[in-house]
């Protein structure tokens, strides 16, 4: 599903070079639910952005769904993001001026679906996250948990193969975080591959596999040891 080999990502400014990823290698298989943890600044978001084609990388190779995505142009990358990848963000990133219906509609319009198809998908995905009755509400009229559920509906409406989540529960209280996690499990159970970055070791443990990132490299953990977990949380 996703194969990264020796990915390097260097951020250059006039004064400094930041090596956000160094020889980052990872393979994620179809249907997996992978949780990525690691200290702040270790490169988790950078990895997720590269995985989701939001950012390019300096060197290495990346094959997504059987396709080498290293040298695509903006249009091709946008199309892959739109069709194959769903994104969930820490701060939800709903568009404040659009109601829930129009928010979920955003990626579907870029996809070029006709309006009947879009309507069906919007209603189904809002139904799935339990917010179909609030289609005409603006994001600001919802709680954080509800907003994140709308974001999930938006990510799923296009039926992506691959869901990327960067700290999806980071802005939520425990109760709401759990309900979002339940939703992600349900989605994963339906066959969508999920990669989730999180600070929360408890939530990470619920995933099928844990990846630990430190200094831009992967150290894969099947069983998170107490010392590293503490390390990750305190970082």
């Amino acid at each position, binding site marked *: 599903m996703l194969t990264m080999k020796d990915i390097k990502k260097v951020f250059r400014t006039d004064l400094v070079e930041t090596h956000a990823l160094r020889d980052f290698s990872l393979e994620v298989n179809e249907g997996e639910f992978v949780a990525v943890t690691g200290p702040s600044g270790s490169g988790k978001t950078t990895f997720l*952005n590269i995985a989701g084609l939001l950012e390019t990388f300096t060197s290495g190779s990346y094959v997504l769904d059987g396709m080498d995505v290293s040298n695509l142009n903006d249009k091709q990358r946008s199309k892959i993001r739109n069709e194959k990848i769903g994104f969930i*963000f820490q701060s939800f990133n709903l568009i404040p001026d659009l109601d829930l219906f129009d928010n979920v509609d955003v990626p579907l319009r870029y996809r070029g679906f006709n309006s009947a198809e879009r309507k069906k998908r919007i209603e189904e995905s809002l139904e799935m996250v339990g917010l179909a009755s609030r289609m005409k509400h603006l994001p600001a009229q919802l709680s954080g948990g509800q907003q994140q559920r709308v974001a999930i509906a938006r990510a799923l409406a296009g039926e992506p193969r691959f869901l990327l989540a960067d700290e999806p529960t980071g802005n939520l209280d425990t109760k709401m975080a759990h309900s979002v996690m339940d939703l992600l499990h349900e989605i994963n159970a339906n066959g969508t591959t999920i990669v989730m970055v999180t600070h929360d070791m408890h939530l990470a443990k619920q995933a099928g596999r844990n990846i630990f990132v430190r200094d831009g490299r992967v150290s894969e953990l099947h069983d998170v040891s107490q010392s590293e977990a503490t390390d990750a949380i305190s970082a």
Partner: protein
Amino acid sequence: MNLEIGPIFRAMMRNKVGAMLIMLQIAVTMTIIANGFSIIQERKALMARDSGVDIANSFHLSNVSFAEDFDMQTAVIDDLKAIRELPGVADAIQVNAIPLSGSGWSMGLQTEAGDDIDGSGTAVYMVDDHALSAYDVKLIAGRNFELTDLRWRTDNTNDWADVLIATEALTKSLFPDLTPQEVIGKTVFINNHEPIIIIGIIDKLQAPWSGWNNLDHVMLTPDRLAFRGNRYYIRAEEGVRDDVMKRVEETLSNRLSGRMIQGMESMEETQRESYTGASGMIKMLTLIMIVLTIITAMGIVGLASFSVNRRKKQIGTRRALGAAKNSIIRYFMIENLIISGAGVIVGAILTVGLNMILVQAFSLTPIAWYYVPIGMISLLVIGQIAVFGPAQKASSIPPALATRSA
């Protein structure tokens, strides 16, 4: 391709103030530009009216006596003889007033005698038998003045000559249904009761006042002027006007004492001065239109830049969700098209409304219908050009901004 018009419009309606202001600015700009253009075209058309005379080669001067015993009658006869003999002079006359000069005489003519009868206003030029040639106008019916028609008009003359030559425009207003040939020999009345016979009709000649409605109404009377002052109107041969002007001035100044030759001016200058108001207005309107267009374009750039900055995160998110750069550019172009579209529709209504007021208040020509669509299209194009920069800036916001910004 999905145009997103619905969501763009709905999102805009949740932030209407800025959009409304720009919309109104576009409407007002269009209103002023369309009406301004219409007024400019109208003024230009007025300025381009045929004067009837040979503007490029003609000039005039005034001849004023100050000596008590100055013999103006002899002076006029001898002056004209001297001028007409000068090389390069096509013809010359003495006259009481000059076309487009701003000052002159006007009278009313009527087709029946009587005190309360509406007449046609007309300018009066008192000339001799050389007038048609000096003005370079065409006689389209009847005859020119002959020496026997001429008489001397002094300060004490109160009556009018027996015959006149009129412009076609004047005879048309007096006798709308008659052909020029049929008008010849007709009697008209001046000062309500005094009859004059029309003996000739010329194609075109303008009154002294360019803003007058009856600019083309002119009557020529066969009067030689024995006033203390009069004017000479001279037509030079093609291309030698400036030399002739010098020669005439020298000749006249040297010929006699007891009088002054002054105010020599080419008809080109006279015509230009006559329209200084109009050409000043054209310049001012053009300036206003340019400034207004720039301000509106800047307003559009400002609003778009502001909304790009405000929506950075949203744009990054849209990019993350699959918007290509083009889709982002298109978003802002369409948003502008909606604002400008509303602006030019309101503008079209205001344009016609303002025009109706202007037509009423200042009796302008109603605006030509096609100024409205041309104005609408122009402002739509200006809007699209203005928004393109900010739209392009928006499209360069990286998709990673979706995860990087708080």
